[in-house]
């Protein structure tokens, strides 16, 4: 199958100025992957893993420090905003916070018709209105919502508006950056099912970013696990959840409480003291070394590479759990 998105050796370094001193943080460190047309690739990690930064670089809201991004076989890494314009309506992004991601001073119609005007897809007002209405119906909203302002909607409805805004210009690829983590579970399920429906309806390709293993499991075909800026494991969803190999992935799976009390009560035997408080700054070793329960001598001094341990199953670990 064709690769719609290809990312090679992507790196993002943030400079932080603190009282005159500049320090640097490597948020994304040498990340490479591809996304096949029509699939949903999951990106999972905790805060500080760099997963959000990866998403923003792909849709060019953040400038990569190093590396290369290809969209539909074209290098878009360093395109200027003007050169990027023909691509902008082909990839879109949905943000996490449904409260801050909509302009509070615009009505739903204005929010949804802007992409049409900007991309020059449709400039006639009457036809714009038709398309906006169609997009609204698509996400489960109605005519009466057209002239309301964002603050008149609930979180779930706002997220529907965000999704409609992303999809109205008919993109091929959408980055979903924790689209449901600010929502209640009952509403989350609505949005997840909506996203699934829209994907099949519009032949979309998704990059689904989340910290929630359950959500990733439900939505994705393939999953990458990120830890401190690196991909530590990547496999098909089925394989990853059935036989996780990297100690971090296994740790995550144990840490997430399941709503079934019989499953959950047994599993809460996580180390009680905090060992991961001091993040190792030695560049040479494995980044997960300070928290790892399977660490061996080699892990401290030698940084592991991402290796294809099983077919299509990549792991970055010296002492993988096989």
């Amino acid at each position, binding site marked *: 199958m064709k690769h719609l998105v290809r990312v090679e050796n992507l790196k993002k370094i943030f400079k932080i100025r603190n009282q005159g001193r500049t320090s640097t943080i490597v948020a994304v460190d040498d990340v490479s992957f591809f996304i096949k047309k029509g699939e949903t690739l999951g990106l999972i990690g905790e805060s500080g893993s760099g997963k959000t930064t990866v998403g*923003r670089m792909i*849709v060019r*809201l953040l400038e990569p420090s190093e590396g290369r991004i290809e969209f539909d076989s074209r290098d878009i890494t360093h395109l200027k905003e003007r050169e*990027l*314009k023909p691509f*902008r*309506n082909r990839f*879109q*992004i949905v*943000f*996490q*916070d449904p*409260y*801050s*991601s*909509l*302009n*509070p*001073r*615009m009505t739903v119609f204005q929010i949804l018709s*802007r*992409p049409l005007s*900007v*991309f020059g897809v449709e400039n006639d007002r009457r036809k714009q209105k038709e398309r906006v209405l169609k997009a609204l119906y698509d996400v489960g909203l109605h005519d009466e919502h057209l*002239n*309301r*302002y964002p*603050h*008149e909607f609930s979180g779930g409805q706002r997220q529907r508006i*965000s999704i409609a*805004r*992303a999809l109205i*210009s008919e993109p091929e690829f959408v980055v979903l950056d924790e689209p449901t983590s600010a929502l209640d579970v009952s509403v989350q399920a609505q949005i997840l099912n909506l996203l699934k429906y829209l994907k099949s309806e519009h032949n979309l390709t998704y990059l689904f970013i989340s910290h929630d293993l359950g959500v990733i499991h439900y939505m994705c075909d393939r999953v990458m696990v990120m830890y401190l800026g690196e991909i530590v494991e990547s496999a098909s969803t089925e394989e990853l959840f059935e036989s996780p190999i990297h100690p971090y992935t296994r740790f995550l799976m144990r840490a997430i409480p399941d709503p079934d009390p019989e499953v959950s009560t047994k599993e809460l035997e996580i180390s009680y003291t905090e060992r991961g408080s001091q993040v190792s700054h030695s560049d040479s070793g494995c980044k997960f070394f300070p928290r790892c329960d399977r660490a061996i001598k080699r892990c401290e001094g030698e940084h592991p590479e991402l290796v294809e341990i099983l077919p299509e199953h990549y792991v970055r670990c010296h002492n993988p759990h096989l």
Partner: protein
Amino acid sequence: MKSRLDSVRKIYGRLKKNRLAVVGLWIIIILVITAVFAPLIAPYDPNEQDLLSSLEGPSLAHPMGVDFFGRDVFSRVIWGARVSLTISLVAVAISAVVGTILGSLAGFYGSVLDEVIMRIMDVFLAIPSILLAIAIVAVLGPRTSNLILAVSVSTIPEFSRIARSAVLVEKNKEYIEAARAIGESRLSILFRYALPNSMVPIIVQASLRMATAILSVSGLGFLGLGVQPPTPEWGTDLSLARTYLEIAPHAGIFPGIAIFLSVIGFNFLGDGLNEALNPKLKDR
């Protein structure tokens, strides 16, 4: 549309809780009515001289007395509202627009543009605004247009500072990123997204600046650099009355009270607006 009305009603509801703001609002309403209907309200022509009754005290015929030139003080105070208010309003409007544009450009684009604009503003801010106004009028001559220019130039830096910081806050919100993702141009992002959401502090500032503008206009008038006689203007009249303040205090007191009330009115309203608009008018 309905929701716009609702939010106006809500803001008014909050404003109403602040008693001083309501007082300020009423003072301003009365002031505006006076200015608009001056010809109907004023019993006399403000420049009509009746030298025989010069410096006469308040009476039924002349509720605020008569000044040295035999003119009715009440009529002059009423016409003065028109002059002060118009000049101040135009001056504040100009400085609000110019200051907001400069400040928001500085805040939005940052780097060199920000440095250049804001350092220039700093220079202006370093000079007390009344001194700056005096200097401008002194150089260009005391004409109404120069007066407006003087008052507006001296208030531009305030507006630009406030607009800049408001835009800086908005600039980092997610809806700005969303706008970039749908390919909006930088200018469009600034004027359609960032700026409309930065209006609250600017509106508050405009009300507060109206107070200082009125004070500046009458201050310049008092120094003889403002509106020139015989045009009725509170500051100018106050200055004329000063000579006879001991024998005819009324000629100075009433224009003084008018200045005082209008300054206080805009200040109260500005403070009230600040409270009413700030606890997030976008309620979740």
